């Protein structure tokens, strides 16, 4: 395109989207792991009490 | 003065107070006996609005203590493990501070009179840093004497007091009761406590295992009951 004022820098765009994906995905996995741990611990306790 | 029902308090899943109900009418003294770790201090702190119970109801001086603790604080005075003494202030200055904070008369004559009641007038102008723990305890008692409290909560008040001090404290408590005030006194030693008690309760493992009028119990009965009831609970 002739009207380019700036080069495209796709690398930066992908870096930004990649970072966001890692951050949100990582947080999602962190949440999943914690809730699984808590649920299994609770079940373990209930099992122990029964 | 106090009506408590079903008080419970847990710290990190462990119940410390496990369903305590008690009644302390005006003009009487309840002595709480129990080994260390039985929950005496926690119970006293609940009554003093310092700890919120997990469940149960508590009325102090006609006020719901859980809903409006601020109104209850007008009516109570506490002598706890900590003496509320500032090390860098003199005995007199300590009293002036607490009397002013409590909204009481803080004139020098009044403060000195309270100090002489606990026999500290000789050291009125000395820094508390040099005092023994018994002397600090006595400053705490003088602080109570300055106020207009109707309910007095005492945690191990006899520690650090000599024979003279114990006698003074017993007289003070009797006079306090005579004026229509109520007293709750927690201790693990029988000495001194029995002279002022109208009712005796034994706390073990967070429960009241005995709650009887003091007149019904002789010292030997009490000693035997105490040993039976607190056996196996943590010391």
């Amino acid at each position, binding site marked *: 395109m002739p009207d380019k004022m700036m080069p495209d820098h796709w690398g930066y765009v992908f870096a930004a989207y990649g970072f966001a994906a890692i951050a949100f995905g990582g947080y999602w996995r962190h949440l999943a792991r914690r809730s699984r741990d808590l649920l299994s611990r609770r079940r373990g306790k209930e099992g122990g009490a029964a | 003065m106090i009506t408590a029902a079903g008080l419970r308090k847990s710290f990190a899943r462990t119940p410390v107070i496990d369903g305590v109900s008690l009644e302390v009418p005006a003009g009487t003294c309840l002595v709480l006996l129990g080994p260390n770790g039985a929950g005496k201090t926690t119970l006293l702190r609940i009554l003093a609005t310092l700890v919120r119970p997990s469940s149960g109801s508590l009325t102090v001086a006609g006020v719901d203590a859980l809903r409006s603790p601020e109104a209850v604080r007008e009516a109570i005075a506490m002598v706890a493990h*900590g*003496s509320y*003494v500032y090390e*860098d*202030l003199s005995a007199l*200055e300590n009293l002036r*501070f607490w009397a002013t904070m409590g909204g009481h008369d803080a004139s020098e004559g009044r403060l000195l009179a309270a100090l002489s009641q606990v026999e500290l007038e000789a050291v009125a102008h000395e820094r508390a840093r040099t005092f023994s723990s018994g002397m600090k305890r006595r400053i705490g008692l003088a602080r109570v004497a300055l106020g207009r409290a109707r309910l007095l909560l005492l945690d191990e008040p006899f520690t650090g007091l000599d024979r003279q001090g114990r006698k003074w404290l017993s007289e003070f408590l009797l006079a306090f009761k005579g004026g229509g005030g109520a007293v709750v006194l927690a201790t693990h030693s029988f000495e001194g406590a029995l002279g002022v008690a109208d009712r005796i309760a034994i706390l073990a493992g967070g429960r009241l295992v005995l709650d009887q009028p003091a007149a019904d119990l002789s010292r030997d009965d009490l000693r035997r009951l105490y040993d039976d009831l607190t056996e196996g609970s943590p010391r």
Partner: protein
Amino acid sequence: MTAYGRRAWIVLWKDLLTERRSKESLNALFFFSLLLLFLFQFALGPDRERLQAALPGLLWLGFVLAGLLGLGRVFIAERDNDCWEGLLLTPGDKSAIYLGKLLANFVLMTVVEVVLVGLFGVFYNVDLWGVLGPLAVVLFLGTVGLSAVGTLFAAMTAQVRARELLFPVLLLPVQVPVLLATVSATQIVLGGQPLAEAASWLKLLAGADVVYLVIGLLTFEFILDA
């Protein structure tokens, strides 16, 4: 005087008396300020122009560092002999205690600041006499802002483990606006410009002070509460 005023006053009286009697710590705070002066000098080198330009920032950095060490002091004495508990059991509006502590901190900070400003004037050869009035206004507003949040957070962190770490971590980010405003205003004042030039900064400071004070008065009871 009302009961509220008497309570605030007796807290102020008690804290200042305590501070005066444990002189060595106040002296250490002055000595610390003096050390800061030397360190700034070494860090920036002997270039006078550069020092002059950085002076307002250094001055306030010094105050903030002194505040980090000094603002928590009025709560240390409360930890001995369970005095916290005694304060909690006093009837009436707990914000009177906050007000007393805040005033004590304000007085302490002002004393340290006056000494530090004097030392700056001597060591960095700044003529302060001409700008004393405007400088006092900036110092006053900035110190109120620093003490208002500082007193609130110091009360909180006095009862938390890793107090020395947590207090700055909480206080410093919140103090960014106060720092920006005071440094900018000090720059204007030391540059010999009239105080009106700094009016927008002073308004911002005054507004921030009011917000911090109101929040402090309203929330202090929750920090003290059982």
